[in-house]
Each structure stands twice: as C-alpha cells, then as structure tokens.
C-alpha cells in the first residue's frame, strides 16, 4: 500500500477506536467497580478490582429489591408492546387499505401524536379519573397508548407495500375481515411488528419519567425507578456513598437492555432503514 494511504488508514483507525473507547469507558467503570469492596470503589477508579466481590450482586438484589422491579419492567415492556402493536396493526391495516376521507383524518390525528409533548399534569388527572393511577394495568395501557402513533406510522407504510390482491381474494372467498387480518395480513407484517416491538420494549425499559409521575407504591416500581431510589438512598448512607453497590445495582439494571439490544440488533437497524431512510 502507498505510504500516505497507510498513514491515513492508521489515523482513521485510531480515531475510530478512540471513539469506541470513549463510548465504552463509563460502562467499563461500572463493571470494574461493581466487583470491588466499598473502600476500593470509593473513587470509582478504573483500576481492576483486587478480588471479585460477587456478594455485591446478591446484596443489591436483596436491598435494592431488584427481582420485583425486574418483573415489573418486564410486565410493562411486554404487556404494553403486545397491546399497542396489535391495536396499531389493526388500525394501520384499515387506514392504509381504504383511504377514505375519514380514514385519512384518523391517520393524520394519530400521527400528530409522534410530536405531541405529554402534558403530565392533566394526564395525572386522566389517570386518576380512570382509576389507573399507581396500578400496573395503568402503566401497560399508558405505554401502549404512547407507542401507537409511531407504530401506526411505520406499519402504514409497510401495509402499503403488501399486495392488495391477497386480502381482496380472501374477501371474495367469504373470509371475514377479522380472519383476513389475523391469518393473512398479520403474519406478513412480522418484520415491522418486530421492529416496533423491540423499539418499544427498549423505550419502556429505559423510561423514568412516567413511573416517577404515576407510581407511588414501590411495589409497582420498574427497574429505573428502583435503581434511582437505591442510588439516592446510597449517597445518603451515614457512612458515605457505597459506589460498589450502586455500580452493581446499575449493572444489573442495564443487563436486560444490553441483552435485548444484542439479540435484536437486526430489527433495530432494520427499523431505521425502513423508517428513516425509505419513509
């Protein structure tokens, strides 16, 4: 290779690995400090732990009440995703297939939701009146409602690319609309259902502001809220903050997201090429 190109390639690789390291550094800090003793973790230094303190994890699972929090996060993420994706698919199907004036208005209305900021003060009122505040079912319904606009937007474009003859033939053969949808359309929507599903699961799992407003009882808290609570209690320990335990707690809380991310990478990136680039 040309020496000048070699130098340029070296610089490029240096830049890329530098960026990779900067992205990784905080995660590395969390991981190493999660295994340290309280004293060693005091300054959150990048040094490797002297001996591995596996007890940290059992301690935080117990003190940070991570198991119920994990189950709550999973319930909210998967429950709201199944409900929201199903309702959005039903809507996107008829709105994209039959573009009457009414359907176009409904579509436009739903899409506005993508950009509409939530008014939490009045939403609290709505949650109170419907009896959903501080309940698990309330969080599921709320998260389902919040994802619908974006889901409908992605699915609408996808339905538009499916051949119409499929459902028309089914209709002529006397298939009911419901059966046509569930046995013909829904299976074909699988890629976009997965994209919407994965994005929503990640969003709900990371969400902090909604539980903060709507969940008082710690029994209903998802992981984000219980981790934050553990952290703010931790910094007020009479003996000073225990960063080893806080790190262990944070590591366990991000583990599910990282696993979902690694397992579902394809669908996330697929969503971007479908949603952002092709429209």
């Amino acid at each position, binding site marked *: 290779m040309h020496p000048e190109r070699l130098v340029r*390639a070296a610089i*490029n690789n240096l830049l890329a690995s530098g960026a990779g390291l900067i992205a990784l550094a905080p995660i590395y800090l969390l991981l190493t400090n999660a295994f340290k003793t309280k004293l060693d973790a005091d300054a*959150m230094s990048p040094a490797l732990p002297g001996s591995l303190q596996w007890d940290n994890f059992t301690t935080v699972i117990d003190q940070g009440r991570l198991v119920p929090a994990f189950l709550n996060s999973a319930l909210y993420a998967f429950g709201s995703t199944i409900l929201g994706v199903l309702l959005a698919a039903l809507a996107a199907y008829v709105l994209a297939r039959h573009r009457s004036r009414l359907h176009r208005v409904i579509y436009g209305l739903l*899409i506005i939701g993508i950009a509409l*900021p939530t008014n939490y003060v009045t939403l609290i009122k709505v949650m109170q009146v419907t009896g959903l505040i501080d309940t698990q079912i309330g969080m599921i319904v709320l998260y389902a409602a919040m994802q619908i*606009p974006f889901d409908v937007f992605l699915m609408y474009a996808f339905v538009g690319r499916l051949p119409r003859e499929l459902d028309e033939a089914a209709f002529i053969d006397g298939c009911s609309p419901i059966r046509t949808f569930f046995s013909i359309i829904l299976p074909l929507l699988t890629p976009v259902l997965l994209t919407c599903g994965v994005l929503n699961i990640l969003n709900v799992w990371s969400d902090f*502001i909604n539980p903060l407003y709507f969940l008082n009882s710690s029994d209903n808290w998802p992981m984000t809220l219980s981790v934050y609570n553990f952290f703010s209690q931790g910094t007020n320990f009479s003996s000073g903050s225990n960063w080893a335990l806080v790190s262990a707690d944070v590591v366990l809380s991000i583990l599910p997201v990282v696993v979902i991310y690694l397992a579902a990478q394809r669908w996330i990136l697929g969503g971007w090429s479908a949603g952002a680039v092709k429209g």
Partner: protein
Amino acid sequence: MNKRAYPTWFAGGALILFGVFVLLPSVLGLGFAFTDWNSYSTDVNWVGLDNFAAIFDPSSNYFSAIQNTVLFTVATIALKTVLGLALAVLLTSGVRRLSYLYRALIYLPAVLPMVAVGIVFKSILNPDDGMLNLALRFVGLGGLAQQWLTDITLALWSVIGVDTWKGAGYIMVILIAGLLVIPRDFYEAASLDGASSWQAFRYITLPLLRPVLAVTTVLNLLYGLRVFDIVYVLTNGGPGYATSTVYTTVFDSFSLGQYGIGTALSSVFVVVGLLLSFVVLRALSRSEET
C-alpha cells in the same frame, strides 16, 4: 366492498387509547392553563392570561427554563449531528476492518437507560475524585479540572456533553443507513474528474443525505425539547435554576401543587409541539417521495 372489507372499527382501539391518554390531556391542558388550579383548594378559578404572563416574564424561573431548554436543544442538535456525521463517514469510508465492532460500541450508549447513564456520570464528573478531573490532572491539565455540575455557567454544558455522549451513536447509525444508499458510482465519477474528498463530501454526500439529516434533526429536536431524565439525575435543575428545563420545571410545579402554571407551561409546549409535528410531517413525507 372497501367499506365492508376494511371496517373503521379496526382503528377503534388505537383511536380510543390515543384519544384518552395522548390527545385528551393536551386538550384539557389548554383549558386548565387559564385557571389557578392547585392542590390547596378545590375551587378552580379562571385567571385569564396570568399564568402565561408569569411564564413569559423574563426574570422568572419559567422563562429561564425555556431558555435553557432552547439552548440545550440547539446545542445537542449541532453536536450530535456533527459528531454523528463525522463518525458515520469515518466508519463507512475511512475504516474497513472492524467497522461493525466500532459501530456496535459507539451505538451502545444509546440503548442504556438515561438514569443509569446519569448515575455513572455523576461519579465521573465529581470535582474531587471523579474520573474526568483525575484524568485531566494525570496528563498535566489539572488547570482544566472544573466543578462540572455545580458551576453555574458550566453545569448546563456538562449536561449537554453527557447527553451528546449518549446520543451521538444513535444519530450515527441512522446516518450510516443513509450513506449506504448513495451509489458508489457517484464518488468514482467525481474522483475521475479530479474532485477532492472534501469536494465529494460537500457536493455529493451532503445534498444526497439531506432528507436523512432532516429526520435526525427532527428526532433530536423532539428529544431536546422534552429532556428530563438526564437533568433530573445529574443536577435536578441546579445549581439554582441554571439547568432547569421545561419538563423539570413542570415536574417541580406539579410537586408544589401548582397545577395551573404547570399545565400552562406544558400547553405552551403542546402548541410548539403541534407546530413541530407539522414540520415532522413535511420532513418525513418529503423523504418518502425521494
């Protein structure tokens, strides 16, 4: 046959959930914004434009929250776009080997919950024994060590920095998807004509990437205006009100029971959001046509 084959009630479930939990609060908010609704009394009285006068009083905390939110939004849009674009170009044309590993690493912060990110950076930015100041002192730049989160002029920029660390990879991934659909022939033709790599970037990459850049800008914009988690965890709006944003201020006024003013501030926001949603629609439909 259309009517019977594609019944409108299929959209009913989505429409009801959307109507009750997304649309209704916004509409109710517009009404309550003109009242003194609060947690101390059961009466709700009409107060006209009082809440809005308080919000747009340049000396009020509400106004500084709006200013901070705008600064945060503009700065993060600029930083994430420039960094994301630079990384996207680097990883699609500069680096061949390991490109996928770099992409996965740089995107990773984007999937982490903001609360977790905030907690780690709270330690990294600690002025005494935080990693950042230690590293600066270690390389002999101790003079640059700062009170990152408690200095009034610096705190907002620290929050912006952390947010950029988390969000740049996300923008990069979208831009990479956009770069990959630009035909290679364009660059080959340009280099045959003697165009420099800067010229190729300026006259081929940038114009063809415009629809995708519009999308990332809108995404960054919508995110920036709603920023809450990272501020809440890192500074909770402080020192003083130096880093308070619209959403942290709404949360504060909600905690204090001042629902009227909270909902007024939210409503200003909803109107801005509606205007922006129009921009979103335009940007997205334009990218669909190309």
